[in-house]
């Protein structure tokens, strides 16, 4: 299709002649017909039924749009496809729509209903994209619809949709500023949002719509400070800039004492002078006393502390934003930290360098010391672009001081030889500035510059002349030699500015060079007509001055020059000539002024101050466009001056509401103490409260296994220590607040769980999530160090319930078929429980079959109690691995990959009632999202041959924050191959797999000792595997051996007389092959492990697993 369409576009008519033109109908070559017929083929393609044709057409149209070609006449054809099913077509239609809707408002309305439908979609991403396109269509008629959509989206469950709503606010505002008040309401609402996803976007909206409404920030200030590090880079920039302004209005100048001290000194001096007005003095003293003890507002400190880590950002804009914040807000002593980061930016792209250097130049004027250690970083390389060189020069000049001037001048000297003449000129000017600023080197510089006058390059000479002129003005008396030298130069120098400068100098100091000056005027009179205007003006000046001081020699010359000027083309020069003539040449008419001519022309002129162009630029907020341009750009918000007295800091306090945990400030000491007591309880989670750490707390929490709990532990520890080491008062308050919040979380576990669904990492949410995590880890009964008895108990209680449910069901259905199996199973289960109980009470392990039946009567509630106890037990001995096998959880779907749906599974070691050849797998779903998940079911199992799956009944609905457990059966065919299948929700499918440990492929059977020996006798030879081992330190008694074997494999204990042997029996679930395990203890901690099994592979694997368990 795109083969031969190489035609020129009549309309676009740009430079792209001969380029292949997309979207051009090859048939329409004619000039007149083209407008009607062009794009006909595209229209046809868009009307076709085939998505591929539509796509091709849209691609060509978008390519036209990208090139800036007009494609507006296709609007009707394109807009029809807005509801197209194909995602890419749809996307391209959106692109087109956003581009042309403004021009074709009526037709654009056709598409609105599609977006309105999209706004109601259950999928958050579709809702968000519908809102995004709807708000991007700049059609005034739909303003009410947009307003409604934004309002609705602002209270959407999904933070992503809320973020999109925040983005839509400025769009609507620019379309219809009338809506401002309503939009501010929405902004206010979104500002209260606690997710990092929304924070950046809403502050952006705030800045565009109502930057003056600073009071909206009060309540959200602390939250924004705390969220900052987790907000995306671009949002960080916007928030930091806004907070800089905010801080300027709310806090006191941290450097106030310095200025005050100076002031105070002065005042004392005056005070001693006039002792009379004592009262005034007192008032002053009172004011001083009141203001002197400056204490930084804790919120001010919070801002400085939370922005500092961002200096390490890879994003130059973020670094610059933090740097300007420190420059404008930090105490003088702390500003230094930004220097290193800014110097780092100088290694970035040249555009970045350009902007950074501009800001550094401004900073160096105020705070020179900050950059002095980095002097060498500003040295200029021959490969730098000229504009960078000149800015570096500026910085170097600002940095020059008595101590480093010689180094800097030496460096400058190498620059003068550069081939880049603009740069050389700038260097000479810089030398001049150094000379004026640092008195010591003035003569040195002047001499150096004079030597430059003999430079071969005229530009260098000219620039030197200009600079010397400025320098000479400071002490002309001592430098008549130089003036003479310069007078000689007038013959050679052609650069007008330099000539003018020399002439001005001679005129000004003609008394120092009485002999040369008239001669110079003579020469100039000769060439007057050929000079540039500025030179002519200076010739007139020179003539006038000479006439006044030495009229005898120069009278005629002056008159000649004045006559020439009278007929000059330039009216400025004509005016000047007339003016001078009237002033200096006494005539009858000349008025009183001529008497003062000498005073007028030869007045003492103040020496010029060579100033940096960057002086006082810091009244613009650094890093801003306005600062760079040194003029106010549109929409620039002035950086307010510090207030004289601090506004009420309590406006930033936020009360704890019943439902939502928020920042609060606790005032009473007592309360504080109470909280402190609680600390050890929460101490473990404390670390997670830091914003950086918490990012991983979320991702880890699900997948964390025993081994890495220590890792996060160490992370949190260090974090804690950081937090603790900060002794400032507000620090404590902060912590307290966190704790308080946590407490609220705890008291409302339901709430926290539902809130957890928010995918973002808002500070608050993290804490809530932490709560959930703790609950979960409790139920896992892994060696997590935290234990929360209440929550975990309730959880495990419910689990137990469900287990017993299945138990009873099983009893009903298969009472006769598997009585023994069931019994032994029960027994083994009891055993583990019993063990934990015994363990706790420190009983001697006496495990005989007679004991177990007693335990059968344990009520489920008691069992759950035990479970709870066993949890505490693991806390006491955290090194024990997987103490109770029945609850070891494996992860099936991580909650991040599962978009909030977390799935875990365990082998609950119950017989699977519908099919005894299957292994029962208990699956535990947790819905962490904010919306309910529907239709959870299994699809498309991909299994090894022979394997079978009995799916669990479909779960119709899982409300947000809830969990549910189901049991499914898998026939693994006695292999450890994974069972792969898809887990489906109403929106998504996840590929998951369950891989059983070998120990879970069997089920216990009850055998007597004799039976065991008999069976063992039949499974000799290749079916017997045996190995020697050394028992692990904590595995020396029977009890722990039984515990460990049971943890590893689902086997039943065989009672036996000998206390040295432990025997276990079971059979594989699928084929029913016997599995016999013997552990014979020997002296000195050794043991012999024997596994007899018909299936050799299983035997070997089991051997390995048990060995591993026992050796530890």
């Amino acid at each position: 299709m795109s083969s031969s369409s190489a035609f020129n576009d009549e309309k676009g008519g740009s430079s792209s002649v001969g380029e292949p033109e997309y979207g051009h109908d090859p048939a329409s070559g004619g000039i007149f017909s083209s407008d009607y017929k062009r794009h006909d083929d595209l229209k046809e393609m868009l009307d076709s039924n085939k998505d591929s044709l539509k796509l091709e057409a849209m691609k060509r149209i978008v390519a036209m749009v990208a090139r800036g070609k007009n494609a507006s006449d296709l609007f009707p054809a394109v807009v029809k496809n807005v509801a197209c099913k194909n995602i890419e077509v749809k996307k391209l239609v959106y692109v087109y729509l956003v581009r042309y809707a403004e021009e074709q408002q009526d037709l654009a309305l056709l598409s609105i209903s599609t977006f309105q439908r999209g706004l109601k979609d259950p999928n958050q991403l579709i809702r968000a994209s519908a809102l995004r396109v709807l708000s991007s269509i700049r059609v005034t008629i739909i303003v009410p619809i947009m307003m409604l959509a934004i309002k609705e989206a602002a209270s959407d469950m999904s933070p992503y949709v809320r973020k999109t709503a925040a983005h839509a606010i400025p769009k609507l505002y620019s379309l219809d500023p009338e809506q401002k008040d309503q939009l501010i309401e929405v902004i206010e609402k979104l500002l209260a949002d606690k997710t990092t996803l929304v924070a950046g976007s809403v502050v952006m909206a705030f800045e565009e719509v109502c930057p003056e409404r600073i009071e909206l920030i009060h309540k959200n200030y602390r939250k924004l400070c705390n969220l900052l590090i987790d907000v995306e880079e671009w949002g960080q920039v916007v928030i930091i800039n806004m907070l800089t302004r905010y801080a300027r209005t709310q806090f006191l100048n941290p450097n106030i004492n310095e200025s005050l001290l100076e002031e105070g000194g002065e005042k004392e001096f005056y005070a001693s002078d006039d002792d009379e007005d004592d009262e005034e003095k007192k008032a002053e003293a009172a004011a001083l006393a009141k203001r002197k003890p400056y204490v930084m507002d804790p919120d001010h400190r919070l801002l400085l502390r939370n922005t500092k880590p961002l200096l390490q950002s890879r994003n130059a804009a973020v670094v610059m934003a933090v740097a300007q914040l420190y420059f404008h807000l930090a105490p003088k002593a702390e500003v230094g930290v930004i220097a290193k980061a800014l110097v780092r930016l100088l290694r970035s792209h040249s555009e970045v360098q350009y902007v950074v250097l501009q800001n550094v130049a401004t900073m160096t004027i105020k705070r020179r010391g900050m950059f002095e250690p980095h002097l060498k970083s500003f040295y200029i390389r021959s490969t730098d672009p000229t504009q960078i060189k000149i800015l570096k020069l500026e910085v170097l000049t600002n940095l020059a001081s008595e101590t480093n001037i010689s180094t800097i001048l030496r460096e400058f000297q190498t620059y003068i030889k550069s081939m880049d003449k603009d740069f050389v000129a700038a260097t000479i000017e810089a030398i001049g500035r150094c000379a004026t600023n640092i008195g010591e080197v003035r003569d040195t510089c002047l001499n150096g510059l004079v030597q430059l006058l003999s430079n071969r390059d005229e530009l260098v000479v000219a620039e030197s002349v200009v600079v010397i002129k400025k320098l000479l003005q400071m002490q002309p008396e001592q430098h008549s030699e130089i003036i003479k030298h310069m007078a000689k130069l007038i013959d050679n120098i052609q650069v007008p500015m330099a000539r003018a400068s020399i002439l001005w100098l001679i005129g000004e100091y003609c008394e120092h060079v009485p002999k040369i000056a008239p001669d110079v005027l003579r020469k100039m009179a000769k060439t007057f007509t050929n000079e540039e205007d500025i030179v002519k003006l200076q010739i007139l000046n020179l003539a006038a001055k000479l006439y006044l001081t030495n009229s005898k020699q120069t009278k005629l010359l002056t008159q000649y020059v004045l006559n020439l000027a009278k007929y000059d083309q330039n009216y400025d020069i004509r005016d000047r000539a007339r003016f001078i003539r009237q002033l200096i040449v006494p005539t009858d008419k000349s008025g009183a002024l001529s008497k003062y001519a000498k005073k007028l022309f030869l007045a003492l002129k103040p020496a010029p101050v060579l100033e940096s162009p960057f002086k006082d630029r810091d009244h613009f907020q650094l890093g801003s466009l306005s600062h760079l341009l040194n003029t106010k750009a549109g929409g620039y918000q002035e950086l307010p001056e510090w207030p004289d007295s601090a506004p009420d800091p309590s406006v930033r306090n936020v009360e704890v509401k019943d439902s939502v945990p928020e920042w609060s400030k606790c005032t009473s000491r007592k309360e504080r103490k109470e909280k402190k007591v609680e600390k050890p309880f929460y101490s473990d989670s404390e670390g997670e409260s830091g914003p950086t750490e918490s990012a991983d707390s979320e991702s880890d929490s699900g997948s964390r296994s025993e081994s890495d709990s220590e890792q996060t532990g160490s992370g949190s520890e260090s974090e804690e220590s950081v937090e603790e080491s900060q002794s400032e008062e507000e620090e404590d308050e902060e912590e307290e607040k966190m704790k308080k919040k946590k407490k609220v979380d705890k008291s409302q576990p339901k709430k926290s769980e539902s809130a957890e669904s928010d995918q973002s990492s808002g500070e608050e949410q993290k804490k809530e999530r932490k709560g959930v995590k703790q609950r979960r880890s409790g139920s896992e009964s892994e060696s997590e160090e935290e234990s929360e008895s209440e929550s975990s108990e309730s959880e495990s209680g419910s689990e137990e319930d469900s287990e017993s449910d299945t138990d009873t069901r099983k009893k009903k259905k298969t009472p006769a078929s598997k009585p023994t199996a069931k019994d032994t199973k029960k027994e083994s289960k009891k055993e583990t429980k019993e063990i934990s109980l015994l363990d706790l009470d420190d009983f001697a392990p006496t495990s005989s079959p007679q004991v177990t039946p007693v335990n059968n009567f344990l009520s489920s509630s008691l069992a759950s109690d035990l479970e709870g106890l066993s949890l505490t037990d693991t806390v006491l001995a955290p090194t024990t691995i997987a103490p109770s096998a029945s609850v070891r959880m494996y992860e099936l779907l991580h909650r991040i990959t599962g978009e909030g749906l977390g799935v875990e599974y365990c082998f609950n070691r119950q017989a699977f009632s519908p099919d005894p050849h299957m292994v029962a797998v208990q699956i535990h779903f947790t819905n962490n999202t904010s919306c309910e998940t529907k239709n959870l079911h299994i699809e498309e199992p991909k299994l090894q041959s022979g394997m079978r799956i009995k799916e669990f009944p479909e779960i119709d609905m899982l409300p947000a924050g809830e969990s549910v457990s189901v049991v499914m059966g898998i026939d693994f065919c006695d292999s450890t191959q994974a069972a792969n299948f898809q887990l489906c929700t109403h929106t998504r499918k996840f590929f998951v797999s369950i891989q059983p440990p070998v120990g879970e492929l069997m089920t216990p059977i009850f055998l007597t000792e004799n039976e065991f020996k008999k069976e063992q006798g039949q499974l000799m030879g290749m079916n017997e595997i045996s190995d020697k081992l050394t028992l692990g330190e904590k595995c020396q008694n029977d009890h722990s051996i039984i515990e460990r074997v049971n943890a590893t494999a689902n086997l039943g204990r065989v009672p036996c007389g000998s206390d040295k042997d432990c025997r276990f029996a079971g059979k594989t679930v699928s084929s029913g092959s016997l599995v016999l395990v013997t552990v014979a203890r020997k002296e000195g901690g050794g043991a012999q492990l024997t596994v007899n099994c018909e299936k050799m592979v299983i035997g070997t694997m089991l051997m390995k697993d048990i060995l591993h368990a026992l050796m530890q």
Partner: protein
Amino acid sequence: MIHSLFLINNAGDIFLEKHWKSVISRSVCDYFFEAQEKAMEPDNVPPVIRTPHHYLINIYRDKIFFVSVIQTEVPPLFVIEFLHRVAEMFQDYFGDCSEVAIKDNVVIVYELLEEMLDNGFPLATESNILKELIKPPTILRSMVNSITGSSNVGETLPTGQLSTVPWRRAGVKYTNNEAYFDVVEEIDAILDKSGTTVFAEIQGVIDACVKLSGMPDLTLSFMNPRLLDDVSFHPCVRFKRWESERVLSFIPPDGNFRLMSYHVNAQNLVAIPVYVRQNISFFESGSSGRLDITLGPKQTMGKTVECVVVTVHMPKVVLNANLTATQGNYTYDPVTKILVWDIGKLNQQKLPNLKGSLSLQSGAPKPEENPSLNIDLKIQQLAISGLKVNRLDMYGEKYKPFKGVKYVTKAGKFQTGKVVPKQSSRLLFDKTK
């Protein structure tokens, strides 16, 4: 914020335009062209140009000007940084960020720009998220696409935007799990004519290529983290852990990314791997000059110096060069006045030498300044600062990844032959005079 974007090539053609708010006529670029003309060289075009109604913020990269149009106050670095991010994204997607690549993939470019900004405010700038939305073109896919008419746009909705680790895409799966880290150090140095170091420092970066399944949580520690003076991180690195323990702890993005860049403590002496003996002189009469350059290895820690290239920016009056090189090849471009001598591997026994005469424009005065040399080099398996990675640990996933660390040292801005006035000789600006 960012109103529109124009991409302009060196010839001054606007070959792509994108508007995020209402359309701004491309005639606004005339102000840019004016500034470009004034600046003579692309490097010298001011990054911010003021026009009566707009502000143009531009970057120059890979022979393309990215000119963005701004209407109201915005931090200029914000825009500049974003434009560079766009250029990097193109590079990431198309292999290079050239005009041809952009024109060939104009639809993808347009879709990318659409996703990266919303109403002028950055929306998705993480490569992993964008790749979930819009798949990068490959030869195979474009062939398949052209046959089947399927698309580059991802079928599934991107979940990355919703996550708290936006840099990582969900559901990553690899059969071979590998994590490679390249520690690349660059020496920035200015040496004077006698070979004394005027200024030297080491900049380093750690680039990573991580292809790991699931959600791995990595911890990278150094043997000698004290060497690092100033660091900047990818957003994935947990800053607090760095502050307290000096280890890099992070959930990595999928694929290639820059983990950190650092600056080595200034107190440490910088080893200079090569020395240069140079003698470039111009004769007052006869319009000719002589050039003699010899290079040799200095402090190389027993490693070979490779890929040595010497570049000399000759003064304008040098018309041509007639030289002989004992090793490698040289080229002289009389238009740009750049002499390039590509040496290759540095040989300890036989030092490479470039010698010969230069012909100057007759009648022109001899150049004042002797040109300085820019040297490019590479040393494999060596981080010149001595930085060493101690170990890499992975948490959160159960498989064993394959890990590797590579060290490379390069010359950054390495310049020799700067004429620095000596303190002993009488100076132009000597204080004693």
